[in-house]
């Protein structure tokens, strides 16, 4: 069984799932739910796939273009979604993503409903370099002024506004960053699986990335990372029951909401771990 965990494809998908989890966490850290994530991933996958395969554009440029278009689409989703409140805004992002899926079906150059073959470009090294950069970026974000501002908005729009924070501006920024990361996941996915079709980017993909964060935890980026790792391994172990996957997700969501609504990793856990490691570090230094 361990062999199946060490295949390049599994390692690629594990890395891409971590990116999905973290990309969903960033808008959530500013109090927004993105049900349009599947559209953001799809836009980047289609654009970058078409650029490398149909136009022969170098892969690094396609990565940048994919991240850029998803970031812009994310900001657009957010700006439109913010016209409504809470659940309505989330539903609006979902509707926008569905428009994107319909558009994929309507483009003949990328195979319409049937999809198209993308030239494979991805190795586990590329995927994990992307994961590492994204995690470092998000870690820096969490401890920056911008991260604190996101946290303030998530806690209370009203109070943060009376401190001079323009919540609309920062929510759009959060969606833009999350969109860029979702775009990176989309580009890597397209060039790893090398076959993309519209239904890959249906709402199921949003549910997947949402479940990573729900299971792992909302309070820090490590929640999304932990959720992605756990679920990717779980689904690999239970590959024989792949037809039951939606049910497994459903049961997991209910169980987490009922027994641990904060998710598995909380901010308190991360701080305790930080203190534990700093104690070990001090001990090592003393006994060197």
């Amino acid at each position, binding site marked *: 069984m361990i062999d199946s965990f060490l295949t390049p494809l599994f390692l690629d998908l594990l890395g891409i799932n971590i990116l999905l989890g973290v990309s969903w966490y960033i808008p959530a850290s500013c109090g927004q739910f993105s049900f349009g994530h599947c559209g953001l991933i799809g836009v980047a996958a289609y654009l970058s796939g078409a650029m490398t395969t149909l136009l022969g554009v170098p892969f690094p440029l396609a990565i940048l273009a994919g991240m850029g278009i998803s970031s812009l689409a994310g900001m657009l989703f957010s700006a439109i979604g913010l016209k409504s409140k809470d659940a309505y805004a989330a539903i609006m992002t979902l509707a926008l993503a569905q428009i994107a899926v319909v558009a994929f079906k309507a483009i003949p150059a990328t195979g319409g409903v049937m999809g198209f073959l993308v030239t494979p470009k991805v190795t586990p090294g590329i995927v994990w370099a992307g994961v590492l950069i994204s995690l470092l970026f998000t870690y820096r974000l969490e401890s920056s*002024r911008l991260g604190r501002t996101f946290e303030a908005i998530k806690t209370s729009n009203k109070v943060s506004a009376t401190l*001079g924070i323009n919540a609309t501006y920062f929510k759009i920024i959060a969606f833009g960053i999350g969109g860029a990361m979702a775009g990176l996941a989309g580009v890597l996915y397209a060039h790893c699986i090398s076959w993309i079709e519209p239904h890959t980017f249906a709402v199921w993909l949003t549910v997947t990335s949402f479940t990573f964060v729900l299971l792992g935890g909302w309070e820090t980026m490590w929640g999304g990372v932990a959720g992605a790792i756990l679920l990717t391994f779980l689904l690999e172990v239970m590959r024989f029951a792949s037809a039951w996957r939606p049910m497994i997700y459903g049961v997991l969501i209910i169980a987490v909401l009922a027994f641990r609504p904060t998710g598995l990793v909380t901010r308190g856990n991360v701080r305790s771990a930080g203190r534990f490691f700093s104690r070990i570090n001090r001990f090592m230094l003393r006994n060197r």
Partner: protein
Amino acid sequence: MLEIKDVTKNFGGVSAVSHVSIKVEKGEIRGLIGPNGAGKSTLFKLVSKVLKPDGGAISFDGAVITGFPSYRVARLGIGYVFQDSLLFGGMTLFENMLVCANTAVNSGLLSLIPLYQGKEEKRLKERVRDVLEQFNLGTKAEFYPRQLSYGDQRRALIARTVINGASLFLLDEPSAGMNAIEREELSKDILEMRRQGHTIFIVEHNLRLIMGICDSISVLNFGKLIHEGTPKEVTSNAAVIEAYIGTKNG
């Protein structure tokens, strides 16, 4: 400094604030009192733009701010400490203070670049330490809000508004839930803020506190301004006594 002119706010058929005009001068401590439901908190929410007025105009330092969103009003220097305000629970007291002084420039994407605005960040942190010391919260900087007493939390909210650069403070029942010692400390904090040149507009139910620190007091009842004057004048005014105690006929 602050001019509220003929401001009105209705909720459905209920008139919460009715044609109220109040002028708060720079450097004064102005009290706003009245029985429950008189419209005091609503008036503060109208000034800070948490609520939009149905009529009238509000000016601050000569500029009309009636149509401004809440965050712009805050950036102009009006700091509103809600009655049910809160510190951000996921951050330490020190981090809560650092959230302040936000603008699109100094907390946007560029703030992610290491060392960007390093000097400004350092200055802000020094200022946060100074203000926390001023409010006797220096030793509790690394505490989370849930580890602070209620009185400390309320005073931390005022400290946060000081760091945010406010020049006019709207304090909505800052002593609610405080014991006598905490109220005494709060009085000293407010007087110290005035000494530093800040202007205070305060809603308070504790009349002893408000009579002790205010230069002048406005009294609201049923959304209407019924009297203005010094603490001494207010306590002897018949309309105010009637609003608080009632008349012989109820």
